[in-house]
């Protein structure tokens, strides 16, 4: 992005995707490039920084959102959204550069893999998306009340919302609670609507006898299905890293 004015400022937003898109709008219209963008919740004040909070403006965010879809394409929207969910530092500035360049170039931006910020956006997208896909398989639900199922996970990235949507589509007749213990959030759905709440007042009820039986059946199946002659713990751990084991029912 040539001819953009670098400004020695740190822009703060409220931690939502709309907030970030508002900043993208402001920077794109004024052709300025801030030094840093950070969420005000996680921002740590620094002697050298000049922070400025940008208020989220839904109208601006919507214009950018539809603009991305129209000018750069659906892929760019997915890339930047999953990249936003990723917990890497400097993701905001990477997204800003990617989108602003994308508005100039169009869908071809996704082919310019040798530009570092394009590659980084795609890499971070893959990281968050990959974890989401893994948890689609590894999340375990427990019946904690009549037709109420609870699942706990410790994801590195903030992928609770897409994860919750997957289960909402898949199990529309169950009431679900998906608990993200890293970010202290809980996704609650009845199959039709959903809500994401903070987990401060969350009480986890105990499981029933019938639930215990299913868990024991699953443990039995898990143990039985492995071929002892082919034992290969390294291979198992490569596919299912130990950090996920704490939330599993089975004991690998």
């Amino acid at each position: 992005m040539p001819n953009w004015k670098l400004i020695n400022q740190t822009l703060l937003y409220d931690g939502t995707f709309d907030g970030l898109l508002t900043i993208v709008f402001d920077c794109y219209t004024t052709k300025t490039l801030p030094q840093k963008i950070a969420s005000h919740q996680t921002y740590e004040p620094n002697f050298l920084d000049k922070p400025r909070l940008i208020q989220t403006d839904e109208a601006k965010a919507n214009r950018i959102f539809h603009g991305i879809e129209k000018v750069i394409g659906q892929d760019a929207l997915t890339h930047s959204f999953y990249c936003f969910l990723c917990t890497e530092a400097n993701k905001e500035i990477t997204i800003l550069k990617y989108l602003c360049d994308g508005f100039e170039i169009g869908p071809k931006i996704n082919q310019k893999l040798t530009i570092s910020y394009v590659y980084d956006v795609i890499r971070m997208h893959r990281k968050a998306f990959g974890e989401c896909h893994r948890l689609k398989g590894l999340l375990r639900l427990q019946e904690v009340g009549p037709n109420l199922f609870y699942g706990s996970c410790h994801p590195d990235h903030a992928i609770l919302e897409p994860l919750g949507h997957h289960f909402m589509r898949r199990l529309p007749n169950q009431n679900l609670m998906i608990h993200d213990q890293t970010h202290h959030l809980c996704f609650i759905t009845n199959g039709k609507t959903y809500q994401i709440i903070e987990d401060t007042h969350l009480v986890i009820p105990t499981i029933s006898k019938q639930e215990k039986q299913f868990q024991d059946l699953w443990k039995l199946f898990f143990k039985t299905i492995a071929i002892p002659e082919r034992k290969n713990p390294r291979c198992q751990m490569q596919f299912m890293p130990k950090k996920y084991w704490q939330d599993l029912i089975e004991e690998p």
Partner: protein
Amino acid sequence: MDIFQKLKILADSAKYDASCSSSGSKRKNGGTGIGNGETAGICHSWGADGRCISLLKILFSNACIYDCKYCINRRSNPVARATFTPREVADLTIGFYQRNYIEGLFLSSAVVGSPDDTMMLLISTVTILRQEYHFHGYIHAKSIPGSSKELITKLGLLVDRMSINIELPSQDSLKLLAPQKEKDGILTPMTHIAKSIAENKQDHSRKKSLFVPAGQTTQLIVGATPESDLKILKLSQGLYQKMNMKRVYYSAYVSVNQDSSLPTLESPPLLRENRLYQADWLLRFYGFQAEELLDDTHPNFNTLLDPKCDWALRHIDQFPVEVNTASYFTLLRVPGIGVISAKKIVMARRQCHLDFASLKKLNVVLKRAQYFITCQGKTMYPRKELSPSCIESSLLRLERNTSPTSSALWGDQLSLFSHLPPTKEDKVKCLTGNL
């Protein structure tokens, strides 16, 4: 007998089936019922042997009337026998699915009574799932060898994937080890399924019912009989071309029975199985032919190098290739460059010329590829170092450096080169059915 005992016996009998994939079906939930197919498939757990667990893999029954010598459930084996009821299997599947343990059901069975009787039991189980519970998850059913066409069609309309295991890669082996099975009993239903899938694909009406949308697969046992790798690979190639097979699985033979006509192996031939899977990928995604990889003078795979490296070293006259101009399929033939890297290269080079640094930026792994490519005419190493023998020794050195010490497990695999430990890659990549 309670459900725990039944599950233990019937999961234990089903574990030798390699297939556990849940991909290829797009069955969608319209807001009623339970489940939603995921085209890419989802693995839910990984067992102690490193194989993925995606489906509830069980036999309906293990009370078999046949006496196949390699099989743990042969009639003359003194193992505990059990049979589920259709209701039990359906309830177990739904219970597991609701808790996100599994992606669906893999239902196989020993032959109880007659092939047709067994098929009827499978059909009634699947009918409960699909019509009573409105289950939209994945179902993989085994077709029982020797069952009638009508029943196969009926089952095919309910499930996502069907398979009939060939198990023994030649008629002689079949005669020797599974005397009650016949080649036609396997190939006729296979052809029938292939034809029905093709017909179903031709039908473009909107109301058509799906017939085996995720295709059919089969499995071959490796190491129980004396067939060479070439023979096995040619068979797979034939199956892919003629039967439009989705996958052929290879299962390293595990000695479960003692019999004079069976080999006694200390450990399953995992390395050989891995090489066959590597070659299988080369057939399906890389445009290779079985005859290119192996021939009568080399009927078996190199134990030290993967099939593609081995091929490239024997055809060094075709290398190095220029990454900026080579076609996609030429790039795919470079060792170390796979489908993803080749696509990235083709995409990125439209925008700018590529050199070794930009390849690294694209995350193209150069460990093997560096010896076989040029970037704008330049090679990574002086050309005189690029003779097949030099490359081979560098490749082997690379592998050795990263390899942990050998374990006894691999001893009989590397009979010729037993002093060399297997590479790290060999161990980790004991590919199973999860890809």
